[in-house]
């Protein structure tokens, strides 16, 4: 999961959904999905990360940058399974501390490093990387165009970028507008064409465009399951925190429907910097 501290939209606190946010998200300056699923979670999990690594042909000794790396799960995976040397960049200093600790624990610190920085101003030199990955994060950046330009800048000619992200076709369904404020991922997600324009606008040549909507549906299932378990395990505490499962349920149903109808989805994009 990306660091979401750059997400700053403040929704009006009136609907029941907003109360959930005020329980979790607003109080802790982060995203409701991240709180329910963990900051390392992104749709598709490791399986999709592996698929992306395969599509990017990440190999032994390759230099890879992970933009909005969170606690570094993907960075470690690319190092351990594909032999890459990975730099993770993230805005959250505490997140990076955890990323470093987990990486030491996994004995990968010789191949995985973490840098504090913003995806819109990556703290690394031009042309330094063979590949760049950005998972479930681009949609949350306020300056998407700047970020895409940075991706292109730091790749060597022939270098490849892999982006996985939420896609929203034809605007956010009306039933979901109310929760956009507390689920950063969908608030500012683009249609497929939007991501293509971003990548092409940065001078990158688009390769693969692949939908992975089932991953998003599984994520909705997981949010629902976790809310229900919270309701079982600690109903009074949940009530004290102002979370009303009954109020959230219709939103989850609407989200599932939107995914099934193809209006909201998840996609993998790859692109290459022309040689």
């Amino acid at each position, binding site marked *: 999961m990306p660091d979401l501290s750059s997400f700053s939209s403040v929704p009006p606190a009136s609907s029941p959904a907003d109360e959930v946010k005020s329980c979790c998200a607003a109080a802790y300056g982060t995203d409701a999905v991240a709180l329910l699923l963990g900051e390392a979670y992104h749709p598709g*999990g490791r399986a999709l990360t592996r698929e992306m690594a395969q599509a990017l042909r990440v190999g032994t000794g390759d230099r890879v940058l992970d933009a909005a790396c969170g606690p570094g799960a993907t960075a470690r995976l690319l190092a351990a399974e594909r032999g890459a040397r990975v730099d993770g960049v993230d805005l959250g200093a505490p997140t990076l501390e955890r990323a470093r600790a987990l990486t030491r624990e996994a004995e990968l610190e010789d191949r995985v490093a973490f840098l504090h920085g913003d995806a819109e101003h990556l703290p690394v030199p031009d042309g330094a990387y063979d590949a760049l990955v950005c998972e479930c994060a681009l949609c949350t950046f306020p300056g998407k165009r700047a970020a895409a330009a940075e991706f292109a800048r730091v790749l060597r000619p022939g270098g490849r970028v892999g982006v996985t992200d939420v896609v929203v076709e034809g605007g956010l369904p009306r039933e979901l507008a109310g929760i956009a404020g507390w689920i950063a991922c969908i608030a500012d997600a683009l249609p497929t064409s939007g991501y293509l324009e971003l990548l092409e606008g940065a001078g990158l040549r688009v390769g693969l465009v692949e939908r992975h909507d089932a991953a998003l549906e599984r994520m909705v299932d997981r949010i629902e399951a976790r809310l229900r378990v919270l309701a079982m395990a600690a109903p009074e505490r949940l009530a004290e925190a102002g979370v009303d499962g009954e109020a959230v349920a219709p939103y989850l149903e609407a989200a599932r429907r939107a995914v099934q109808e193809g209006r909201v989805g998840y996609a993998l994009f790859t692109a290459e910097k022309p040689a």
Partner: protein
Amino acid sequence: MADRRDRDEVFVEFTRSICPVCKEVVDAQVNIRDGKVYLRKRCAGHGTFEALVYGDAQAYTESARFNKPGTLPLTFQTEVKDGCPKDCGLCPEHKQHACLGIIEVNTACNLDCPICFADSGHQPDGYSITREQCALMLDTFVEAEGEPEVVMFSGGEPTIHKNILDFVDMAQERPIQVVNINTNGIRLATDRRFAAALGERNGRNGTSVNIYLQFDGFDEATHKAIRGKDLRERKRRALDACAEAGLTVTLVAAVERGLNEHEVGDIIRYGIDHPAVRSVSFQPVTHSGRHVEFDPLTRLTNSDVMELINEQCPEWFKPGDFFPVPCCFPTCRSITYLLVDRKPDGTTDVVPIPRLVDIEEHLDYVSNRVLPDPELRASLERLWSASAFMGTPGTMDSLQAATATAAAECEACGIDLPEAAKDLGDKVFMIVLQDFQDPYTLNVRQLMKCCVEEITPDGRIIPFCAYNSVGYREEVRAQMSGVDVAPVVPNARELSATTVQSPYGSRIARSAGPEEGGADA
């Protein structure tokens, strides 16, 4: 020139099996056709045989990743001589230790069910083990495992053995964690003192005593077809006696195509509502021993049972809620755990644990080289195992650990979930799907990693599916009873002309049976 044509199937494995008639080892191939998985083999003497082994080809191939490295037992009982499956066992080529050891205490039963893989009943011959034999069997298991996880007393009907309580005591004197009694429930229903005696033993010396109760459905027709009589009232009383005695029960349903496949949803609902029941085990009928006539190409497999559950309980289940067990071969057994919430308005809410935890990321042993959380993996391994039984300390601790980890991310909300998850133990329900192999479906690739074993009175440990399919059961019965036992042949429609009924009700080759015009009634 004629056009070449493609085959109508994808060849995915070359393996070995046995001829269902003569039990000779033969080459076999696994093929995918119309999205389903079939095992096909040819015996020089008896022809070609084919059986459905998994109803969902995609799930079959994807589950290969969930295959855990086996654990070596402390001792092996036999040598490698003729190769699998003729050297049982366990021989040093076996890939897994025993998660669960079965001790069949007798061949006699107070029922004569039309479906009984053990071919038991009211029979003039047979055997019943002595205390000394039981001690040797338990000691064999302890020698092989150190601290065995689960012993299951079975039969025949183990509760009618006069020493059954002694056997439980003997197991509890040894470092064995769980004792299961595999029963039809008649004695539990009619003898309160017996239920109470088992209840007293539950938890003694740290060993749980659980009841594995034969329970196939609610229709009278189901009972008549599978058990030969209407046992509904007996089952109800047995369950109430267990609840009263503080015994944890697993409902065990033999599921046969065309007989009771419509009842799986009701069995789950009934189990969830009954205070004594903590799990349900669905087992597609094993076409070994005695069973009703069947078609090997349309038999039920684990994936078919999953589909039946999804269809019959759509409010609770969807594809992906069951996960294969990595300790045995992943297509042999699938498990799910449910968190069950009985709401004040009388409805019941169910959350399958696989929706909470990314089990796939933790139990993928092939692509995974970075371990996200070793403790969570260890807990999940104990839960997705043949030795997991509800109500036992090992299983309950693992459930708590897994649930707590799954929900730990919410601690930012100020709710201490690891603490709260401690109270979830009572709310967890387990469902197991187990497709045992028979002479049609036997695949040595699966058999070599089997972790459910029969312990024999002569001190061998034989994979359950080999014991039932290859001829070991007949051999042990003959040896113990002193009466010759002909090799059992499956009651497949295509073999009906070449078989006759055995004295125990199963089918045997015509050449092995009585003269023409004999017992083939």
